């Protein structure tokens, strides 16, 4: 993989769950250092697209290449893919029996065979990055939702991934807690991390997106810079935006 190759590339991806067609020919290219933001109605296939990138779902047709891994290859090295890709979900999914530091050092120590001391150093660094340096020894249940989500982001970052995927990571949070998580993501984007972000936070989406992707009915309906939100070209995006506006002012 050279520097110019895209980090994430989806070409005409199809995916069905039984009779339900969820991805109907999705194509998407994310370059190194780029932030792609996926928006769209509930059920439009955003999460599924994201999960396909980390091979949590196997696609029916098309092609996906992530950090040089061709996901449809018969001899795809799944664990190598997962080391290159970090993913954070709406429901933090921290390991409740481990402290924050243990959550963060688990994978580097057992997967990358990093020494415990080095892993702890990395843990401190990523915790500082998300503003949780004083929570290393706390258990997840002792943290607020926003803190848990930031710890989950730190856990992913500790694996030094080449691309980070975020699936509505603030949807379970109060507005204040949402803000602190979004700030961490903006810092991360500014630091040059390649990111694919699914979100319902429209102003955040516009701010952070190098590429905005509007999905509708399992297809990419509209795509472009963040400002396409100000001037939707398709009736679907226009309708979606006015709906989001109402939801936000309600």
């Amino acid at each position, binding site marked *: 993989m050279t520097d110019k190759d895209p980090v994430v590339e989806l070409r005409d991806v199809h995916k069905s769950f039984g009779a339900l067609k969820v991805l109907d020919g999705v194509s998407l290219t994310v370059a190194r250092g780029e932030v792609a933001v996926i928006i769209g109605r509930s059920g439009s296939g955003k999460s599924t697209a994201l999960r396909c990138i*980390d091979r*949590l779902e196997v696609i029916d047709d098309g092609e996906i290449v992530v950090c040089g891994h061709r996901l449809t290859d018969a001899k795809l090295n799944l*664990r*190598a893919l*997962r*080391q290159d*890709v*970090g*993913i954070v*979900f709406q*429901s933090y*999914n*921290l*390991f*409740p*029996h481990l402290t924050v530091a243990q959550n963060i050092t*688990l*994978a580097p120590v*057992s*997967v990358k065979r990093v020494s415990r001391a080095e892993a702890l150093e990395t843990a401190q660094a990523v915790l500082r990055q998300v503003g949780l340096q004083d929570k290393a020894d706390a*258990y*997840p*249940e*002792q943290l607020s939702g926003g803190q848990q989500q930031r710890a989950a982001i730190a*856990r*992913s970052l500790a*694996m030094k991934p080449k691309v980070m995927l975020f699936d509505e990571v603030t949807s379970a949070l109060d507005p204040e807690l949402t803000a602190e998580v979004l700030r961490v993501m903006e810092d991360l984007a500014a630091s040059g991390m390649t990111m694919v972000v699914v979100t319902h936070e429209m102003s955040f989406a516009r701010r952070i997106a190098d590429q905005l992707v509007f999905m509708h009915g399992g297809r990419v309906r509209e795509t472009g810079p963040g400002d396409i939100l100000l001037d939707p070209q398709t009736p679907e995006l226009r309708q979606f935006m006015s709906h989001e506006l109402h939801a936000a002012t309600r």
Partner: protein
Amino acid sequence: MEIGQLNANHAAFLLQGAMWTVVLSAIACLGGGVLGMGVALCRVASSRFLRGASGAYVQLVQGTPPLVAMFLLYFGLPGIGFDVPALIAAGLALVVNVSAFLGEIWRGCIEAVPRPQWEAAECLALSRIQRLVKVILPQAVRIAVPPTVGFSVQVIKNTSLASVVGFVELARSGQIINNSLFQPFVVYAVIALVYFALCYPLSRWSRVLERRAGSWRRRPAGLATLAAP
């Protein structure tokens, strides 16, 4: 001190029987626990064959009374040339029985750990074994402690089955004493009390553990909590 015509000799005999009940329970729980761990892991294995074979084992064992298994081992095996002492026959039958039930209890506990925990571990590139050992099992063990302690009470009571193959544990020692005293009410009331004394602390502990199951900060409740009000 005498209760009815029970004297110190009878008491010593009962105590010895109680000791054998404890020994048999320990064999059944430890042996059945080790084997049951294997059963539980096979039940959640990725291999279809292991899942099927362990499932069949559980069905077979749960569908046969442990009493019949004891008969089979104690009276059946000598018929084909293997002499088995009563303790071994009873112990083995109970180990097998306990392994099937504990295996199923523990499979349930492993599956009770939320799916997203597996997925989160998978996304961190942990291997299947690492996911199981470092993420899922520690949480499953926590869930498993109360029902396991509760089940061990069942095991203690089931050891009384060993009396039918002539093994002199608590129930059988009661029978023997009664055969000389002919005071079944008094004798069996005492036997029941001794069983209760063995089982009650465990069921009490199991209930304490259940109440404690909420938080990860505290270590699981130890025996010391029994003393607390």
